[in-house]
């Protein structure tokens, strides 16, 4: 699920036209990024809120296009950051500490696991669905970097920009997120075998 490839100059030109009310420019940017933003929101906060988060993210693009700073990253990363903030607000999450050592890694955040979602219906692949559920169970600070780097395929620098953390922190969180995910997805011995 990579973020769409982009030409930074072309995207900035589109943003400039969008600011002046060019609907075609907005339409181009929207169609280019909407699916990636929706998938990010879907993985982050589930199908129940993904559409709202996506809509609100593009509302933000409409109402505050001047907030985009090309020096800080791509439009895709900026939109992801908006979606992340909105999703966190939707989930009622407060900003977590940047040091993973301060956080409780042992408790999965099961509250955000959906029981039945549109994504479930789309993903007939049971394995993929199991991975998605395991990701949803990760602590938010791990889920952030895993979804951004592994599934949205943002660079470490872009993920750092989105999360407002250092690149080194992105690396360490990603490493721990992957380890936790591997542990969750590891085959468990059956009860008979254990006895």
């Amino acid at each position: 699920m990579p973020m769409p490839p982009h030409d930074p100059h072309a995207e900035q030109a589109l943003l400039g036209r969008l600011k002046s009310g060019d609907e075609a420019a907005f339409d181009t940017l929207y169609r280019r990024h909407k699916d990636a933003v929706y998938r990010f929101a879907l993985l982050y906060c589930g199908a129940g809120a993904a559409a709202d988060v996506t809509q609100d993210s593009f509302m933000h693009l409409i109402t505050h296009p001047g907030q985009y700073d090309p020096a800080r990253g791509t439009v895709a990363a900026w939109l992801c950051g908006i979606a992340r903030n909105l999703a966190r607000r939707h989930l009622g999450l407060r900003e977590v500490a940047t040091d993973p050592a301060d956080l409780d890694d042992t408790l999965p955040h099961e509250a955000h696991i959906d029981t039945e979602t549109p994504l479930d219906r789309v993903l007939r692949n049971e394995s993929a669905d199991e991975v998605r559920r395991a990701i949803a169970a990760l602590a938010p600070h791990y889920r952030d970097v895993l979804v951004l780097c592994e599934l949205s395929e943002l660079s470490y620098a872009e993920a750092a920009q989105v999360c407002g953390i250092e690149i080194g922190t992105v690396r360490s969180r990603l490493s721990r997120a992957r380890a936790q995910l591997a542990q969750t997805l590891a085959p468990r011995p059956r009860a008979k075998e254990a006895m």
Partner: protein
Amino acid sequence: MNTPESLEPLDQRLAELRAALQSVKAPAALDDALAARFRRQHAMRRPALWWMPPLALAAAVALVTWMVRGPMPRPVLPEALPTAAADAGPFLALKPLERIALEPGTTVVATEFPRALLADWGLPVSPERAGEPVRAEMLYSADGEALAVRLLN
């Protein structure tokens, strides 16, 4: 402890999830809603024309007032002098010109008097017409002294 070997299946499973997600699209319902929101946003940012209705109302009131009351009255010009005065000759000084020139407030008064009075100012008078009245303009000083006279007929 997770070893690189134990993470290999994870990479594969993440790849499977990435591939599965490729078919997930944003709901089409968002398209129209956002396009409408974009149009609304930029309609709001157009220059405000709130001042147009009051201006139009004021212009209409002014036009109706002008039509009812008619054109603005022109300034009233002083009435033209009587034709006779226009035709009259120059004033004849009854006092020295230097004194007349120094008089601060003089007044011209149309009057009529017996022609015989002209003889007092050294003017010729025909005996046959001595009894006739003469129309004239008198230039008086501020204290009522006759300074000059101009005969009108």
